């Protein structure tokens, strides 16, 4: 969606219902710091302020709950300020799995592919978001793929993009493979009922 990003559009996004844990914004910050340094972060914060969202990233509390819209707005602002493409957004998602505190606390449960897909993925989602449900539709370890479904959450397509990377990242933590692929196969913004992601590995 190439809508122009301004205060109005932001306000609209912010109206979405639900909350997200501070950790997601924290990981955004870490990515920007890594890529663009403090100056970059400052630029981002300036842009967000312009857009009517005053966010001091350093003061975000990892465990706290924030409006779910922020999740999208942050990414959108990043995209605008730095000119990132979708691939880059995916990368942010992937990166987040490596620095997220919540993931670190969860990792003890990542005992097997089966377990992660079937048991832990929904729980993990619930830890992050107060809306939406995540569960595994299909898992074929032999054929090396899995399909997960995300219901009742429509914030912004950019988040779908982010999540592609994110799910990829999760898989990296449980599968010893250098080639792990994820792709959104169904999306509400394309007219589907829910989001579906096909995860493949070799």
């Amino acid at each position, binding site marked *: 969606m190439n809508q122009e990003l301004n205060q109005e559009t932001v306000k609209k996004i912010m109206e979405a219902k639900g909350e997200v844990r501070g950790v997601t914004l924290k990981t955004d910050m870490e990515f920007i710091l890594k890529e663009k340094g403090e100056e970059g972060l400052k630029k981002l914060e300036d842009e967000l302020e312009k857009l009517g969202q005053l966010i001091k990233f350093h003061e975000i509390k990892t465990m706290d709950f924030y409006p779910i819209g922020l999740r999208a707005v942050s990414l959108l602002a990043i995209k605008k300020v730095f000119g990132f493409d979708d691939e880059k957004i995916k990368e942010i998602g992937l990166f987040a*799995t490596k620095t997220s505190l919540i993931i670190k606390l969860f990792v003890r449960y990542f005992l097997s592919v089966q377990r992660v897909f079937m048991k832990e993925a929904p729980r993990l989602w619930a830890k992050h978001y107060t809306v939406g449900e995540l569960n595994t539709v299909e898992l074929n370890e032999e054929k090396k793929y899995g399909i997960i479904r995300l219901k009742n959450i429509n914030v912004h397509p950019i988040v779908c993009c982010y999540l592609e990377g994110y799910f990829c990242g999760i898989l*990296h933590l449980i599968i010893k493979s250098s080639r792990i692929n994820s792709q959104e196969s169904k999306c509400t913004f394309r007219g589907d009922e829910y989001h579906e992601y096909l995860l493949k590995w070799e």
Partner: protein
Amino acid sequence: MVIEKEEEKISTLLEDLTSLESYARDLFSFLPLPVCLASSIGIILEVNPAFENITGYNIEEIIGKPIEDILVKKEFEELAKETLEKGFVRAKELIIFTKEKKEIPTSVSTILRKSEEGEVIGYFVGLFDLSDIKKTEKDLKSAQIALLNMLEDVEEARGRAEEEKNKTVAIINNFTDGLLVFDPENKLSLVNPQAEKIFNIKQRDMINRSIQGLKTFPTVEPLALILFKEIKDIFRKEVQIKENLVIEVSSVPILRGEEKLGNLIILHDITREKLVEKMKTEFVSISAHQLRTPLSAIKWTIRMLLDGDLGAITLEQRDFLEKTYRSNEKMINLINSLLDVTRIEEGRYLYKPVLTEIEPICQFVIKSYEDEIKRKNITVDFKKPEKRIPKIVMDVEKIKLAIQNLLDNAIRYTPPGGKVTIVLKRGKKEVEFSIKDSGVGVPKDQQARIFTRFFRGANVMRMDTEGSGLGLYIVKNIIEAHGGKTRFESEEGKGTTFYFTLPIKEEFTEFLKEF
């Protein structure tokens, strides 16, 4: 109200969570030791900054990577197996591979992480960089090798020194002269086998004793007596150890730079030499004795011829006979001198000391040379002091002989028309006799040997071939036997002055003791 309370609680909880998060992060980040968390299947889930550093990977590069990427596969498998079995691995030395494929030797420790339910949820891997230690090990090894080499060299040097020492010991032990070494405190520190033989004492009985202590051994006593006085510098002093063992002793200081390490005493057996000398003297003595009678007979025969007892003789016959007579007299004098010398050497030159005046002896001798003095037209001046010269204890015959020899020399070596002056002086404790001539003198380079046996200066040899060279030797012996001293001054071409002194003894008996 309730909601507020709840919100407060949540707020507090959140704050605490944040603090906890901070705390955990700091703890983990601060750790200077590389640590990572791996899942049970070996995927790296978490690393600390130190781990990033050592492996060269960034956090996002390494999380999700299998841990076997940084280890040798086989080693990783063993590590995992052991961790699962024992629950931990302590300090296993493994190589890890960095991003640049560099190898770093590390000590790896692992600890299994289990859930409350007992499920294995992964393991912590701690690394300890051994590069420095390895380097130090390598350096130590090099140092060790260097040290070993040095030790080898030292050992070699020691071996050589030992060899040298053995050589030296062999030399000392086999040396045909006796060797004694005294340390700086004058204690005996070395005795070689030959020295043991000389003294007939075992080394162990002599070692470490002082010179005083050595005096108690009868065989060592004569040596100890001379050492006691002058361990500094002895040169070829003769010491009689037993009846047929005469040793020539010399001492040499052992110096190392300026430092004196002791004294080396060399004991050289000269028994044989002494024996040979004795035999020589005996031979001379016997020969001289044998010659005396025939010479006497010749003397008498010629005397009778000259006196006309065997008939009248012609002038020509007289001439030849007189020359023969004089020649014979010289031979008789030589024989007598030789006999005197042998007696001196054999210690048989006996003295009959009496207390008497020296002046008349001088007069007598001068008178006996009257003819010769007149013949050579030499002026002889006898100066005596105004004060009376006291009587001296002396053997009259011997002193007469001494003065005679000196006057004989003075006349013989002074050209005709020359002058001889004899002076008698009284000193505090001695009487000095001097005889000065205006003769040919003694060349500077020969002056040291003037009193030795058979020595004749090169200049007088050319002038007069008849002197025996024994005269001064006998004079020296006589004077020294009296406790006196001899000396002379001479300049070639100008003349010579000989001096001797005889002590004035207060007590006659004291003097006798010395005879």
